[in-house]
């Protein structure tokens, strides 16, 4: 199977879906001639033209809102937010509109839009080019939030998002774009939104996480194996709505659970994961649930030592996993 980077998998999924369905189109800032500031839409403008790869004015609420209108009409828009941090002006369109269109119209109208946004830190982006923003949206029934970790998942899940009948927020870890590579089949395939994925089978401790941290956990697990610690790793993939069964199963399996997010701790996705576990498998636990996350400060600073202090990294993950195993 060909090996591709995370961002190549994105471009590939976009291209294949645009080839497959004429209603699919891309809109956003600099997505056209420039191919996106990260190059996620590279080559699409050349292949599909300016009408299907739309450079929009600099206005996120319009990018989301115009996309929503087009989706209600019957198109399949893929709106790009240049950085996830800049999705904030579009919150009203996403929460008040996209998420509620089917429900409020009693199933008369629907809104099959995909909104892509690069999130996450470790790229010297400082406060406003590093944030995890999923928790702002992870309480909005009607919306789905997908955050894949591998190129394989990216391709399959982005295709599912585009074909989904409902709005999907598709969050891409920008540090993973070129760092993470993996096998990606040339064939057309989709992966189910709403399903977590066991990335490693293990029996001593359970790690539940998503995005870049999945890789940190996998690396740490390889190291810890030598020490006789066998980690079970569940990749949430869809962070809203959560895959409760998979979470319960993974937590029950080892009775020792570590939850990891790159987001600030308080109010992050993994709080809900902890709540699900404590509601459903409390008596299967052999240790308190552990959480590893960014600190509760607004976002990561720019200066390298400060950014490093903020970021979850393989060392911190390894230590947390070992501590839990030794509990």
């Amino acid at each position, binding site marked *: 199977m060909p090996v591709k980077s995370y961002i190549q998998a994105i471009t590939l999924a976009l291209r294949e879906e645009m080839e497959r369905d004429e209603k699919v*189109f891309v809109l956003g800032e600099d997505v056209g001639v420039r191919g996106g500031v990260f190059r996620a839409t590279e080559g699409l403008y050349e292949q599909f033209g300016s*009408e*299907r790869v*739309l450079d*929009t*004015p600099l*206005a996120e*609420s*319009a990018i*989301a*809102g*115009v*996309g*929503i*209108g*087009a*989706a*209600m*009409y*019957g*198109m399949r*828009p893929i709106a790009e937010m240049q950085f996830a941090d800049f999705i904030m*002006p579009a919150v*009203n*369109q996403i929460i*008040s*509109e996209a998420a*509620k*269109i*089917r*429900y*409020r*119209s*009693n*199933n*008369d*109208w*629907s809104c099959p839009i995909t909104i892509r946004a690069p999130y996450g830190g470790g790229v010297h982006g400082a406060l406003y080019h590093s944030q995890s923003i999923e928790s702002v949206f992870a309480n909005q*029934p*009607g919306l*789905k939030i997908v955050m894949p970790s591998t190129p394989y998942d990216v391709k399959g899940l982005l295709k599912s998002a585009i074909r*989904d*009948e*409902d709005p999907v927020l598709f969050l891409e870890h920008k540090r993973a774009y070129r760092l993470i590579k993996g096998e990606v089949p040339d064939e057309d395939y989709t992966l189910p939104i709403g399903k977590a994925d066991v990335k490693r089978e293990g029996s001593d401790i359970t790690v539940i996480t998503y995005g870049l941290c999945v890789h940190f956990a996998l690396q740490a697990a390889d190291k810890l194996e030598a020490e006789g610690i066998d980690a079970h790793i569940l990749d949430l993939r869809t962070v809203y709505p959560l895959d409760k069964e998979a979470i319960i199963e993974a937590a029950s399996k080892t009775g020792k659970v570590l939850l990891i997010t790159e987001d600030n701790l308080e109010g992050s996705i993994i709080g809900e994961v902890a709540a699900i576990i404590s509601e459903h498998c409390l008596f299967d636990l052999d240790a308190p649930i552990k959480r590893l996350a960014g600190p509760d400060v607004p976002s990561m600073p720019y200066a390298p030592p400060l950014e490093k202090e903020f970021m979850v990294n393989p060392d911190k993950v390894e230590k947390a996993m070992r501590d839990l195993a030794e509990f």
Partner: protein
Amino acid sequence: MVKVDRKKKVIEQRHEQLGLNDEQVLDMYRNMLLARRIDERMYLLNRAGKIPFVVSCQGQEPGQVGAAFALDKEKDYALPYYRDLGVVLTFGMTTKDLFLQAFAKAEDPNSGGRQMPGHFGQKKNRIVTGSSPVTTQVPHAVGIALGAKMEKKDFVSFVTFGEGSSNQGDFHEGANFAAVHKLPVIFMVENNQYAISVPLSKQVACEKISDRAIGYGMPGITVDGNDPLAVYEAVKDAVTNARNGHGPTLIEVVSYRLLAHSSDDDDRSYRSKEEVDEAKEKDGIITFATYLRETNVLTEEIEVKLNDEIKSLIDDATDYAEKAPYADAKSIYKHVYAE
């Protein structure tokens, strides 16, 4: 006599000059009168404690109906705001539909009783579902027009909103987007002088809301909302432009909100009775009726029939809707996502 004839001639020519025949202007009159009567009945029902909420169209029906008549009800899309009874009636929503929504019953085509009254939506008539936060529909209209352009269809998308709402960012962003991409959208501001209690002078400092058009590079026009023919003409021109690929237009329709903001509001604390009374004298429904009588389009016979028809429509609809069942309580778990 000569004088009178001349005047009559000129008057007559107004709708004919616009390409409207007698039947059509009668239809226009019917729809605005129907909207008014529905609204009045809903207020009665509200005061009687039968429905919890009304948000009124009174004073704005002539502009709404005039505008909607300039559109093609077979293909154009409407994104009305909460006062647009005149628009949705013209686009095919029935009196019964409207009472079903007022009573929040299961059969309400807008939302099955999920949304408050005035939150219109009916896909079969291309009335696009709306929400409460004002102005979010503006970018939606632009997106639908983008669909028209991409699919090379010649429909237009017609969106309305209050003058207060034209101060929201979404208006600005949507209008600019439509102009840059030359999309077939008609932006119609219904300027009724108030945003709840806040008068126009505290909402904007520009002379006309249509002055905003030049900043987007689109035509802007202000018309008298009490004159349905003037509004018809302005919208018709904008539609022609839009269908011909010349892009969007901003139309400001000036009227007056004759009642309080909604059934929950009391307007006496922020405006005078005199001001309201003065506006009532310019009520476009009355002046349009006078025009139709003067041009012999509206005869006494027709008028009686029309009033009867409207009354029985409303009586039947009220009756039906009042008796109709609510949706099942367990239905609230449905339609969060596609099933």
